[in-house]
């Protein structure tokens, strides 16, 4: 028990509990939401968001943020539509091409952050303008993709009992989460990402090449955005420049709901997965209800976001206060909790410039 319930798994646990709770409430109100059909829809409809969230989780764990993912996704869909419809490129080649370009775009963003020592927020904001602008330059229209292979891919699905379907795109998302989890929690690269997010300067003193890690992290995130673009274009069989406007905020919200700290160094993709599902669930519930006006929809989403974060916060605070009994004298909090660093041991969260 004590091994699995600690400050790190607790936010995740809290998220899962709240998710199950909300699902139970929804299902009690609308039994139709219980079926595999809605479950399947939840996975399919949020596949692109899930993939974005995987990339975003890695960036956030590394202590950064990426506001450009929605725009990169949009750019990918138009580029794909243009490539496949305009030049008749086989989809497989087009996919490879946009993935490579996406990765390179992210690498450029990471390089700008590292070499210009500019904050990720601003650099990725600029990248968002750039990607969205390029997408509009390619085409301002939404372009349908008529391609036999595409149709097959888009329709590919595993039938579930009860009219539900596990579509290819949902499968891709699940695999992405798996791969993201392995990358982040099982590889040396993942360890470097956590190190970078914990304290970039210290990580560097410990021999980590922070520049390369930053570049790779952003390359990965944009790669995921490009993959999300592919998935989205399969999902809609078209490409459109304004696709994914504002979706970066959803991805960030999913990551945050999942218990990953925006200060970096703490978190994981499993929580983000739940975060994505929760958002999907909220929207589904609002649609099932069907009486909320436009404005109440927005207010409800904001309120639920608040609820989640508040509940998580409460659980964390309560556990910090009462939870660590048993293992010797519990940690006293250090002089101030104003920093949002996870553990308040003196050496954490220092953004110290150099050894004096």
């Amino acid at each position: 028990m004590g091994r699995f319930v600690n400050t790190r798994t607790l936010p995740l646990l809290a998220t899962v509990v709240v998710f199950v709770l909300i699902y139970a409430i929804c299902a009690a109100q609308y039994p139709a939401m219980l079926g595999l059909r809605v479950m399947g829809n939840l996975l399919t409809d949020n596949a692109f968001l899930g993939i974005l969230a995987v990339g975003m989780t890695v960036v956030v764990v590394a202590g950064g943020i990426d506001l450009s993912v929605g725009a990169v996704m949009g750019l990918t869909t138009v580029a794909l539509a243009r490539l496949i419809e305009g030049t008749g490129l086989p989809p497989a080649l087009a996919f490879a091409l946009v993935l490579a370009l996406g990765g390179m775009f992210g690498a450029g963003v990471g390089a700008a952050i590292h070499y210009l020592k500019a904050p990720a927020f601003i650099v990725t904001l600029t990248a968002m303008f750039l990607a969205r602008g390029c997408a509009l330059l390619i085409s301002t229209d939404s372009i349908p993709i008529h391609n036999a292979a595409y149709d097959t891919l888009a329709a590919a699905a595993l039938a579930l009992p009860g009219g539900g379907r596990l579509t290819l795109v949902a499968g891709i998302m699940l695999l992405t989460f798996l791969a993201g989890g392995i990358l982040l929690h099982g590889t040396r690269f993942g360890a470097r990402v956590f190190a970078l997010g914990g304290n970039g300067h210290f990580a560097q003193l410990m021999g980590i090449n922070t520049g390369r890690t930053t570049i790779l992290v952003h390359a990965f995130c944009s790669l995921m955005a490009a993959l999300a673009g592919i998935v989205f274009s399969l999902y809609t069989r078209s490409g459109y420049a304004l696709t994914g406007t504002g979706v970066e905020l959803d991805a960030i919200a999913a990551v945050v709901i999942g218990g990953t700290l925006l200060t970096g160094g703490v978190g994981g993709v499993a929580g983000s997965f739940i975060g994505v599902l929760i958002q999907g669930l909220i929207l589904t519930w609002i649609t099932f209800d069907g009486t909320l006006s436009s404005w109440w929809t927005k207010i409800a989403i904001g309120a639920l976001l608040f609820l989640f974060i508040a509940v998580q916060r409460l659980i964390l605070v309560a556990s910090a206060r009462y939870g660590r009994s048993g293992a010797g004298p519990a940690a006293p909090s250090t002089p101030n909790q104003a920093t949002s660093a996870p553990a308040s041991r003196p050496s954490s969260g220092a953004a110290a410039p150099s050894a004096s």
Partner: protein
Amino acid sequence: MSAFILIRLKAARPQLALLVLALLVNVFVAPGFLDLRLQDGRLFGGLIDILNRGAPVMLLAVGMAPVIATRGIDLSVGVIMAISGAVAAAGVNAGLAWPLAILAALATGLVCGLWNGLLVAVFRLQPIVATLILMVAGRGIAQLITEGRILTFTEPHLIAVAGATLAALPLPVVLALLAAGLTGLLVRATALGLFVEAVGTNPRSSRLAGVHTSLVLGAVYVWSGLMAALAGLIATADIKGADANNAGLWLELDAILAVVIGGTSLYGGRFSIGRSVLGALVLQAMRTAILRAGLPPELNLVLMALVVAAVLTQQSPAFRPLAQSLVRRFKNKEAQA
């Protein structure tokens, strides 16, 4: 008083240079740009337009700079603009006297800021998350007030917030400059500026030194909310209607950009109100130039991205040595030739 000169000109040189550059582009795009003429007691001209159009973002930047200095960020300012505008319009349309309507709008901004401040300072949410909540829900609140329509109004005093002239300048310009001056004075003539910077760089040390950190944190969000409400009033008065759907849309990003161009680090610490205002003007000058250049609108975003990228590069600590070495190489070449 001389100690409180708001823009220390020397420190603001990069921002001033950028502004001059942006203005030059405007002159290039529209030759008569710099002309100023006085008509009916009001100044007209390209410069005035930039000040006037830039007023809302100037106000937002004035509120945002202290927030960013505390290592925070306020994503909700655009939405606060919409809410306060809606409150003012709904107020006068419901027969409220205009001063009360304006007060109600400002109070709304204050309450929104208080909410953000509470989440950040008391509940210790990360600022970006805390303000995201209002950013998501706030537009719904504004629409709830207007029921999704554009609430037009004819109350002349409310319209005057954007249309009147004071000291030969449009009132929004005067308001923005006054707010900037007042804020500058508030932070520099009192110890608030020091506290903000101290809390932004090291909240733990600041608390141990006796700084009321949560109060300081809360206060900057309240102030940001107030500035946003004022900006919302101007935006609403400007179109004689409260457009809950679009007022202030994405302006939080402009404000953040303005503060960053103004040289305040997103990692908190030193900040300057004056330079943030200059940053807002740089943005507006760029936008005006893009709008007036007659290029296809599809290009707008790409141009904006390129300009911001150039500004970021120029501001980067890594840039100066690079530029110097380039200049040196260039000079050497010239010497050889």
